[in-house]
């Protein structure tokens, strides 16, 4: 978890903000892209030890110029002291470049070409983007507190994003604006929440739940208030996910949503899922023993931040995520 160690270091943080233009991308897409973005990345990465043989990973931390000269590379950012040195050395190399290549507007960057549709995910226009956090918890008295575990960073909140398309947003609007009217959360959204967002991703990338792992998934919306400018809804749900005796999650969900008809938009979309989680998957070892409380908090993303416009982890494989499998 590079972000836990390296980029939490005050000196690295300061250096990153002041001396560099910081960018993050998902290597799963970038190394595969057959477009100008992918071509440029491979040109830079080929100068590092990370050649991506046989289409393999090229992950790491790279420092390079706007015209593509590699200045520094480290395969991961586990040690802040090591990264500081990499950054300082790279900055020193940059400062030695000819003035013409490092002065503001000294380099001309060609326009971005057409993106590779196979490895580019586009934010749903007029849809809903939700920010999803998960955290291990411990029960204390009648409430819950942050949990603890031996896995470095495993006690921290995870993050992901959930995308709801424009058509799916329409399907969320109550067919009858009448207090007490209760209806099922549309199937595609309910399945997406269960399979791709009710997961423990606090220790890395888990395998997502398959269709057959969704044993129960009952989520409803109830109209709680009808006002001049808003319709308020309560979300209730019980989900049971099971992939064998050693892996499962049985959360209950509660939520408050508010729809603004004049804007055709939701200005509140808060959901909390709480339940006992057990087990781990191939890339998420280090789970706590037995069944332990786990919480998920969902809310509207802030789309003014580029970092909150990134694709959900689960949408790499588009058809299952969009309910087309």
């Amino acid at each position, binding site marked *: 978890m*590079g*972000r836990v160690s390296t980029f*939490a270091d005050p000196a690295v*943080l300061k250096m*990153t*903000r002041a001396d*560099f*233009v*910081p*960018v*993050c*991308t*998902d*290597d*799963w897409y*970038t190394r595969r892209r057959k477009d100008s*973005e992918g071509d*440029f990345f491979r040109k*830079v990465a080929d100068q590092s030890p990370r050649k991506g043989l046989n289409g393999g*990973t*090229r*992950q*790491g931390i*790279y*420092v390079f110029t*706007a015209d593509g000269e590699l200045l520094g590379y480290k395969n991961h*950012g586990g040690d802040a002291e090591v990264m500081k040195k990499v*950054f300082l050395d*790279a*900055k020193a190399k940059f400062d030695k470049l000819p003035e013409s290549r490092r*002065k*503001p507007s*000294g*380099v001309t*960057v060609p326009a*971005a070409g057409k993106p590779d549709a196979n490895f580019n995910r586009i934010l749903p226009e007029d849809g809903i983007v939700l920010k999803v*956090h998960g955290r291990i*918890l411990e029960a204390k008295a009648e409430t819950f*507190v942050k949990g603890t575990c031996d896995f470095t960073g495993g006690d921290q*909140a995870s*993050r*992901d994003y959930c995308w709801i398309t424009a058509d799916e947003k329409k399907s969320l609007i109550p067919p009858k604006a009448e207090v007490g009217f209760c209806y099922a959360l549309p199937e595609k959204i309910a399945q997406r929440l269960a399979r791709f967002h009710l997961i423990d991703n*606090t220790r*890395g990338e888990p395998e997502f739940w398959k269709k057959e792992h969704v044993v129960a998934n009952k989520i409803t919306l109830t109209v709680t208030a009808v006002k001049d400018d808003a319709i308020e809804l309560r979300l209730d749900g019980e989900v049971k996910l099971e992939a064998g005796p050693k892996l499962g999650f049985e959360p*209950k969900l509660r*939520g408050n949503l508010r729809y603004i008809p004049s804007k055709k938009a939701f200005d509140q979309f*808060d959901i909390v899922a*709480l339940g*006992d989680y057990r087990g781990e998957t191939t890339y998420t070892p280090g789970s706590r023993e*037995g*069944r*332990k*409380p786990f*919480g998920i*908090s969902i809310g509207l993303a802030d789309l003014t931040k*580029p*970092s909150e*416009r*990134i694709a959900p*982890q689960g949408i790499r494989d588009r058809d299952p995520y969009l309910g087309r499998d």
Partner: protein
Amino acid sequence: MTRVFILGIFSSLFLGGFCYWLAAAPSSIAPVPEQMTAARMAELQKVIRPCEGEDAFDKIAWLTTIHEARVKAAKEGKPILLWEMDGHPLGCG
């Protein structure tokens, strides 16, 4: 006397077995409140979401495409720092 002794052995075995089962039994389903008030919801969201200082890397204005970074770097005369991970660094756990 013998009867009391045998009863004692059985009682001890039963009690020991019960304690062992209790210790090995999974914890119960977390007690989710039936009525989620706005205050209760806010309290749980606060516990689950990142707390102050937890996501220090979030104080960095990360861009999310290399092309955008190249344009900005060229304009400002700075090198680019790319954090490349299999799983988006800002959104995969």
